[in-house]
């Protein structure tokens, strides 16, 4: 299971991912992101319970980010686990994604 929950908070969709995200289930993450982006709302991706993420998981996040930007929505990462942060840093994507401490911080940061 890589997509743990999907809920809406203050008009933003919060998708919590969990466990190991790799080639086996990155497709599931991609599908969940793209399906929710169809609602034309901002997405918050909670990575607190992600124990492992590899290039295919990161690729799904990047694709989500690109689609969100194209339709003028935000895709931000929240509660990023140390492991996920390390991988984002390795890919030098830690500056590309908006990263917030948690959902509350992300909601407060709304422009």
């Amino acid at each position, binding site marked *: 299971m890589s997509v743990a929950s999907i809920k809406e908070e203050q008009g933003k969709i919060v998708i919590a991912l969990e466990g190991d995200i790799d*080639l086996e289930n990155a497709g599931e993450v991609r599908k969940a992101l793209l399906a929710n982006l169809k609602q034309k709302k901002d997405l918050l991706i909670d990575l607190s319970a992600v124990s492992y993420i*590899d*290039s295919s998981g*990161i690729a799904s996040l990047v694709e989500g980010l690109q689609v969100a930007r194209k339709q003028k929505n935000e895709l931000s990462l929240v509660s990023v686990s140390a492991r996920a942060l390390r991988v984002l840093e*390795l890919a030098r994507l830690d500056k590309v994604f908006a990263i917030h401490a948690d959902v509350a911080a992300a909601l407060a940061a709304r422009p």
Partner: protein
Amino acid sequence: MTMTPSDSGALNFAATLARSFAASLNVDATVGQALASIIQLLETEAGSLFLLDDAGSMLVCRASVGPVKIDGLAVPMGQGIVGRAVAEDRLLVVENAYEDKNFFKAADAKSGFITRSILCAPMRVGDKLIGAVQVLNKRSGHPFDGIDGKDANMLQVMANAAALAISNARLADQLLEQERIKRELELASEIQRSLLPNEDDDLPICGINRPIREVSGDFYDYFELPDGTIAFALGDVSGKGMNAALLMAKTASLFRCLGKTIRDPARLLSILNREICETTSRGMFVTMVAGLYEPATGLLRFANAGHLPPLIKFPDHLYETVAPDAPPLGILRDMHFVDHEIDLKGGLFVAFSDGLTEFRYGDEELGVDGLNQLLEYAHDGPLRQRLEMVLAELDQGGWQAKDDLTLLAIDDRAAGKAWQRERVPAVAAPAEADFLFGLSFPADPSRLKMMRPALEAAAKACQFGEDEIQDLVLAAGEAIENIMIHAYGGQVKGEITLAVHRLPDGIMLRLRDFAPRVDAGKIEPRPLDEVRPGGLGTHFIRAIMDDASFIPLPDGEGNLLELVKRRKNATESAEATAVATAGGADSKGGN
């Protein structure tokens, strides 16, 4: 058949009747025919024939002739004229029915028939009373003769002949019923056999099922999945007979259906358990071992629901197998089952039902030790032959089976081509490399999560720090994914071997595939200023590993990628040593 009621006529009649009865195999037809003949011979207005029920407490009218039909009427033993005749085992003559306190007047009141006189004879076969026949009112209007009279004698003769005929017809019925049950059991047995897998000597797995009766409560099954993994199960249903056989058929069918998609034995048992709990009558349960075996790697995962622990024999020792950690299926609805994973390393996995270990020789029981010894004895030859040898030893040694017997074995030695290959490196590792472990697995993304703990443990053994271990696992995972996606193009049947070596200052991984050669020059990490999916894996490998290079293979197909990572502290201390040495030289030179 018209005859006058003379003595010789009665005897002739009895003989004719007996012959015609003997030819009849149907009890109802025989009873009806007997009564009609008796009434005709004795020239009476009515008559009825009663047979004792199975419990021997009620007499039930099986045929009646005359103006009143009383078929189905039940009379308790000892009551009424009929009940008394049987209870007292004697012929009764009632000259005036209405004066006899035992006479049951209600039937007459209802029908308008007036019973005047009755003659009732018990029917017996040997010592066994089976019922009675009674006749009412002679057509002549005269009463029946007395107890020793002609009528009484004739009725008793007729009753005896009828009793014999009915008994014969009953026996014939029983034989027919037995024949029907036998045919149905044969069919059930055939259906059960059809649930067992077709033997395939190309697979390193084999089973034997030998029911103690026509139908079995045991079963086994196995089948190959598209990626070469073999799903297998062995089960034993509590109880015996048709109930157990039906539950066996249900469980086996469910396993075959679920086992094709569920790649987690513990989860599969949990679903099976819920299904059996929902629909199985109380008190029945199934013990079962189910698992997955990969011939390419020798890895075997299984879960055990209350079944005897399978025997696992490695080439040099017997593995202490785990006791069942969950109850049988069908007892409690929400049960958790546990997966166990074992690398068979060329060994033998044997699951069996208790019918095998409970083989007896006098007071002696075979037991697990006995089975182990027999498997030792039958250690050579094709797997099927070895299992048959075990059973032949028991049969020839005079051991007696007490229960259904089922045996399922997996011979990793027979599967061992890929297993051997991972242990024979394509290119010899450097002398300082200390081989830690090797794995061979299909190019299936579901394998990635199984690989990570093994790599973590190896990196820990090479004294890497926690962050380095996580990075190393990421880089190795990316390299494996590259093979899956690029070398094999997503074909999960492709084979990958991984050999992990410890270096004095780090770790070396060698990943081999058997796909067409890749052009190493074309593999480049993508520029990181482009924010786009894909191409990150190679970047991760380059960023994390100190060296990643393809080693030319002397011949044959495939690619060999060597990844080396040195410990950060080892690199730093090596650099520090170099600096110190250089500094020393300088100072020395300065002197």
